[in-house]
């Protein structure tokens, strides 16, 4: 049962961290609760459907369908996060100003919310389908099934708790710096997901590794440790990265930064504050 709890916890953790960053980044946007919940519901539905179709996915594209689907899902999330970061570079300061004076959800931001709803759905989909397959196996196992399902439920709760703690921790950031901080987190999250996408494409042999293992820092912080796994999601840490992963990581980060600088500044110049 403990093993079940740990396994489910690990799968839920990544999605929970992503959801809490999304929740923080959408602070002050009208109806964000609705959009984030919709993302979770769609993700869970998709995870169950994907679990049923898993063998078909795996056998497609000469046996590497799983990797290609994961990479596609990750890159879709990267695009949505990039779009959000650039949108926030234009509107973040105005939002912070407004929230300081009104102190409530005031800004209509249905467009970024839709993009981030998709990010939530894709995160839940990816991690959820593994949990579903695992729990199906247990369900078929018989005798100790109930104890293990209980273990799984505890794992889900524990993962969600970490997400909630991160969210409330982020809320303590002063509102002046809040969106700058969450925007950096979104940027690093996107770069990390791009690196994971590269990892899947290498595993599928669709991309060259450009160095299978550039370094090995697992003696210092391993991928499978709790802290390593948390950093993997938050900033894209990998103890044994391939060269292509670094290329994806920095290309994504630089493109988003350039987008933020380009479009974020132009709006400020076009519409100066009235005297």
């Amino acid at each position: 049962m403990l093993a079940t709890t740990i396994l489910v916890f690990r799968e839920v953790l990544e999605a929970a961290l992503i959801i809490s960053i999304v929740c923080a980044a959408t602070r002050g946007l009208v109806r964000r609760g609705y959009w984030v919940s919709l993302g979770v519901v769609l993700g869970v539905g998709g995870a169950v459907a994907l679990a049923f179709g898993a063998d078909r996915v795996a056998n497609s594209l000469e046996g590497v369908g799983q990797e290609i689907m994961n990479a596609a899902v990750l890159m879709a999330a990267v695009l949505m996060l990039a779009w959000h970061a650039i949108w926030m570079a234009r509107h973040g300061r105005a939002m912070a100003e407004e929230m300081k004076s009104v102190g409530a959800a005031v800004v209509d931001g249905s467009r970024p919310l839709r993009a981030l709803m998709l990010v939530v759905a894709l995160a839940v989909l990816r991690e959820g389908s593994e949990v579903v397959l695992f729990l199906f196996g247990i369900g078929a196992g018989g005798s100790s099934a109930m104890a293990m399902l209980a273990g799984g439920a505890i794992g889900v709760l524990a993962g969600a708790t970490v997400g909630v703690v991160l969210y409330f921790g982020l809320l303590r950031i002063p509102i002046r710096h809040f969106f700058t901080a969450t925007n950096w987190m979104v940027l690093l999250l996107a770069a990390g997901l791009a690196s994971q996408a590269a990892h899947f494409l290498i595993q599928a042999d669709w991309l060259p590794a450009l160095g299978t293992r550039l370094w090995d820092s697992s003696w210092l912080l391993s991928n499978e440790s709790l802290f390593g796994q948390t950093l993997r999601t938050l900033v894209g840490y990998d103890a044994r990265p391939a060269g292509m992963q670094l290329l994806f990581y920095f290309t994504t980060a630089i493109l988003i930064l350039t987008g933020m600088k380009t479009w974020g500044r132009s709006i400020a110049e076009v519409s100066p504050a009235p005297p």
Partner: protein
Amino acid sequence: MKLILAGCLAIACQGAMAADIHEATLVIQDHRFEPAELTVPAGRKIKLTVVNNDATAEEFESYELNREKIVVGNSRIIVFVGPLEPGRYPFFGEFHMDTAKGSLIAE
């Protein structure tokens, strides 16, 4: 971004065709790997086929190889690993960690 990806994919396809790939197979039976120790050549890319003869799903995972992939019941998957330095690379089945254990030995 798309252009970069397309460019990378083009390079990748050429690379994959030119590469010298060694093929190897692992079988999962009663939540155990057969063979538990699989010897592969070092310095070559390896196309590893994992056949799952159990009815339930398994997740092939290795920290040292930096790989993880689901294998649905009564099904098979392909995982590309390496080229590897000579050495021992343990792997396991994440859904049955007490029994499903093994190692890839590169030499």
